[in-house]
């Protein structure tokens, strides 16, 4: 599968490219009062209102680490379940339970990587900076560990309940 990669602090993260709708440079967003702290706010992209998740806060990072690199970030906007369904119904059913448009704030953009599915390993127990629950699997890649995140878990949706 193709994976769109990015960094979050020292972590090298990846998301299945079919789940990604587009990538933007960080822009002003409107805060949502009363929401969880990891909801940074609402974005309006070409008339679509998108909930932006602060990935660092969602992964439980300290305030120092969060405020360290908010200046220059990127937003990874996800496709909705309906959009994924048109392309790959199987994937939509298995790993795309969210109906509303959402986005994740990340640090630096990486490249698009081709991953052989068989090379994906289950998450190791001692990963720092990210709980095993949020990890779909890991791939050893050019002496780097690429962590493929489980977007449904990150968004707080249990796909198995669907």
């Amino acid at each position, binding site marked *: 599968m*193709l994976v769109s990669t990015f960094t979050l602090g020292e972590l090298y993260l990846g998301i299945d*490219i079919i789940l990604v*709708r587009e990538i933007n*440079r960080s822009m002003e967003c409107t805060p949502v009062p009363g929401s969880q702290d990891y909801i940074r706010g609402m974005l309006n992209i070409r008339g679509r209102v998108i909930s932006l998740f602060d990935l660092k806060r969602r992964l439980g990072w300290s305030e120092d680490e969060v405020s360290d690199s908010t200046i220059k970030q990127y937003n990874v906007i996800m496709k909705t379940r309906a959009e994924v369904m048109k*392309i790959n119904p199987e994937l939509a059913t298995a790993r795309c339970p969210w109906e509303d448009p959402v986005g994740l704030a990340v640090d630096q953009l990486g490249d*698009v990587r081709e991953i052989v599915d068989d090379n994906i390993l289950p998450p190791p127990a001692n990963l720092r900076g990210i709980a095993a629950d949020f990890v779909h699997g890991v791939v050893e890649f050019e002496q780097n560990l690429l962590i493929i995140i489980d977007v449904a878990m990150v968004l707080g949706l249990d796909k198995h309940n669907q």
Partner: protein
Amino acid sequence: MSDELARKLSNDLKAELNREVASVRMEMEQIRDLVQDAIVRLTDSFGGMRDQSNRQLALVTTLTSSMEGNSDQEEAQEGEDAVKRINIRSFVSETDQILRTFVDHIILVSRQSMEMVHRVDELATQMNEVSSLLKDINAIAELTNVLSLNARIVAARAGSSGAAFSVVAGEVRKLSKNSHEFSDKIGAVVGSAKTNIHAAKNIIEVMASKDMSFAIESKGRVDEMMEEVSDIDRYTSETIAQVSGIADELNQSVGNAVMSLQFEDMVSQLSASMERKFAVIEQFAEVIGIDQLTDESQPMAERVEKLQESLNMQIQSFDEVDRQAVQQSSMDEGDIELF
């Protein structure tokens, strides 16, 4: 008997008178010889002194003209005797000229350095503009990167039919990465250029300010030195002029001394006169004898008359000799006719 005694006494008197006159005459001759001898030596000596004085005067005159530098004369002789022309005054003025040119050059360099500082400032500003342009280029590269990623996302949605589009997107991304690296390299070069420009500006600034003050100080000091040298030069010229005057006076004094030495002629004339007077005195001894008075063979009145006659003759001949003697009593009165 008494006649004989009287004649003998008379003869003795004459003999004694002759002896004494001869002795005085001899001493007088000695005096004349001594004076002549001394005068010859003194004349020679003063003559030598006058020669030396004249030589000294000539030397001083040469020195004076060399000091004053007789520029007109020298210009006429230009090329003929170039080395001689370098006297103190021309050396001073030439040195002054050279130093003035030198200082003017330094001031010019300083002024140019100031201008250079302004130019370097402009260059630094332009370098900053280049830096900000590089930031713009980086922003474009970044946008291109985002664009290429989005292109690949779109290509992925199209599945196998979007593969070619995905390759193009990959190439676009590579271009963006290359341009980013390229602009980073330019940024590094511009950064080091800025450092160099800053260092150069500091050096030029120091040069511009330091050289100017040094040059102005030097100019002042050179002017002071020139004045001091001029003072010394003037003093030396004055002293030489004084020495020259003294040499003139000395020459005149020597001339006077040599002239005064010509009293020898007077001494000779006086001694000749004395000589003649001695002859008259000797004759007097011959003419007037005691025996004439004591000769009783003739009457007393006749003897006295004869003796009176002899005395008169003696007086007459002495007066005659005396008239021939030198009329002059001092050197100042005689003038040239004496010599």
